């Protein structure tokens, strides 16, 4: 719907309502109009069809397969045809499984902690580096480097740094005369260690998006504020941050969704331990599928994770919509 309107809108003179007026360039060919119009309307769908079909297949097939699988009992390495239909048993198991609830709690803690810290740090860094300094482009490049490192490598690097016997931090603490810290072997600290590694890797993501947002802010607003005598901090608080908000919100949402799916770094760092203290949902799914080999249960778990992420996205989108409407109303009132 939207696409077709947009397409037609381009052909129409400003102010015309869709479908009401005949576009100027076509005047005089009124005889062919219905067909032409129909073709024009169809064109965007035709163009988009191949991509839409592929996406649907690539997205819908595995999703439907996963839903189907979640009603079955299938062990890895046996033919799929031998799997048994078990109805909702996998979901029932999941709701009664203490490990599921433990991993859900870990996932929520992890996701919210990393998103909050990353957004704060990323925005702060962006505001700090949004100016003409010497070597500023060098700093910017350095700051986004962690994001380019493969997750497995990030996991290994941090694992070695955290190593309590030979690691970088162990040496540093020892040199400064402090006791060694059980970074990965204490259930209380392990999750924090994992969060630090994630923050290190993904703050740059928020940073570059915020920086881009900052640099595309309307100069007029900033200029007006300056003329009105706003201080630097006032400009940051009252002009820059509110104007960046839509971008920050989207970036935070992307990070949140990603944080729910993170696997590699934690897999390498702690493999979910000690106990279940860092067993995030995606790792729990992996273990259910490949260690316990309960593919049906793993599928049920994946579907739950999908639902949670979907719910979050919907809530977030709704909040954004509400806020935007409120802003529009406020603007209209002014």
């Amino acid at each position, binding site marked *: 719907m939207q696409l077709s309107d947009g397409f037609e809108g381009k052909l129409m003179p400003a102010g015309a309502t869709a479908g009401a007026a005949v576009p100027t360039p076509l005047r005089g060919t009124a005889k062919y109009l219905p067909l032409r119009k129909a073709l024009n309307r169809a064109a965007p769908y035709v163009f988009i069809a191949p991509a839409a079909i592929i996406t649907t297949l690539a997205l819908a097939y595995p999703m439907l397969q996963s839903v189907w699988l979640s009603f079955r009992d299938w*062990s*890895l*390495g*046996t*033919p799929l045809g031998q799997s048994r239909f078990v109805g909702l048993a996998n979901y029932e198991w999941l709701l009664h499984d203490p*490990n599921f609830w433990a991993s859900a709690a870990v996932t929520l803690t992890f996701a919210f902690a990393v998103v909050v810290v990353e957004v704060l740090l990323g925005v702060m860094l962006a505001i700090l580096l949004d100016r003409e300094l010497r070597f500023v482009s060098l700093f910017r490049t350095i700051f986004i480097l962690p994001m380019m490192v493969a997750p497995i490598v990030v996991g290994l690097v941090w694992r070695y740094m955290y*190593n*309590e*016997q*030979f690691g970088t931090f*162990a040496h540093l603490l020892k040199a400064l005369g402090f006791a*060694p810290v*059980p*970074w*990965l*072997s*204490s*259930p209380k600290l*392990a999750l924090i260690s994992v969060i630090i590694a994630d923050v290190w890797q993904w703050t740059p993501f928020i940073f570059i998006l915020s920086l881009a947002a900052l640099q595309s802010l309307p100069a007029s607003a900033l200029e007006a504020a300056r003329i009105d005598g706003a201080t630097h901090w006032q400009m940051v608080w009252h002009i820059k941050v509110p104007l960046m908000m839509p971008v920050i919100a989207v970036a935070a949402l992307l990070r949140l969704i990603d944080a729910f799916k993170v696997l590699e770094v934690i897999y390498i760092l*702690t*493999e*979910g*331990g*000690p*106990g*279940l203290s860092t067993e995030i949902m995606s790792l729990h799914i992996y*273990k*259910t599928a*490949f*260690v*316990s*080999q*309960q593919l049906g249960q793993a599928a049920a778990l994946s579907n739950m994770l999908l639902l949670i992420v979907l719910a979050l996205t919907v809530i977030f989108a709704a909040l954004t919509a509400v806020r935007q409407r409120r802003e529009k109303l406020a603007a209209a009132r002014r």
Partner: protein
Amino acid sequence: MITRRDGLKGMTAAALSTALWPSASRANPYTRFKGTTLVVNFPAHPHYDAVKKVLPQFTAETGIKVELDELQYMRMHDKQLLEMSKPGGGDYDLIAYVVFWKSEYANKGLIEELGPLFQKEGLALPDYDFSDLIPGYVENIGLVGGPKGYLAGPGAKLYGVPFGAETSVLGYRKDIFEKHGLKVPENYSELETLLTKIPELEKGMGALSSRGQTGAMVTHAYALHLNPLGSRFFDSNWQPTFNNPRGVQAATLLKKIIDTGPEGGASFGFDDMKNAFLQGRSAMFLDSIAVAGEADDPAKSKIAGKVGWAVHPYGVRRSSQSGGFGIAIPKNAANKEAAFLLMQWLTSKKADQAIAAAGGSPSRMSTYRDADLQARYPQYKVFAEALLYADPDWRPIINEWNELAGSVIGVALGDIVTGQKSPQAALDDIVPRVKAIMERGGYYASNGSR
């Protein structure tokens, strides 16, 4: 590019192989497969590091090429399952597997039964001498279908050959023990006394290096003590027994071992545990003999020449680990016969000695008795004795073991060693889940036997 020199090398190798082949009159079984490439899946593990040094010799002798897919050993399982369950044929011709996967692979029909192959004329090597393979290893690594599903006895069939099999031994720092006049522990009470004593005597040094990582790793460490202290994971009717008083005693001891061991023990996998000992962070080691080769290699170990070995301490009975790796041929392998030749070659007397000389773990009694190797590795005498106590029922080798050890028992033990829960409570808490898994597997259906 093949140079003249390579050509010459090939010719020399060919000449050598005919010379090494004893009966010139009999057809050389390898000839048919010259030029074949076998794909093998081996773990990154001290034994297989030694194997890698010897493998080129196989290609030189037989003209069969070997492509090695090397993986961290706990990661091999999913890859192998996926490859071996491909209907059209998988990538692997020969796989190394951890002992507790044997029942699963055999029961799911993923690996070949070896009995018929060993009887095939022209394929079975005449001088192989199967009976020389360490019997405890053959039972533990190779047999499926006997009593309890994994022990020797009626119904048992051979699915794999031990290769990199192992038992547990106690390694200790001779220098530290001499310095403080300590006695090498012969039983568990002596061992327990040393746990608190050593960190007091040697500041900054842990007593005993142990695995502690949540999941399969900490379960392995627990089994090392559970069995000699007189308990098992299950009784003969598959009812959980790990939470009985002796099981709790083993878990309590394990926590003490981690607490008095090198820092970070609760996150140690096999490699971390090994490195802690090899880097001099602990005075004792109680795990696989596979580490012995590296312990005396100055390139990998700071304690080369300072390590003494003893049999696994006595609890209320002798029971040392039985485990490690075997090799098997996937049902969907492309070159089964050539793979069977490689399997025999690798575990032949000659290769077994060559691999032992390169630091690997022997699979044959004759290798342990070899005078040259005994002179080179004085610990072989201790190891040969330790093998007598290798306990084939050390852990249940059933399909469900991966899940039990990885996601249930190993998680409770993780909570115990990090002090989250008391041993008794943590072990009691998981009994219902363990029973549910066993119930699902059908172990309680027909009088407990399966």
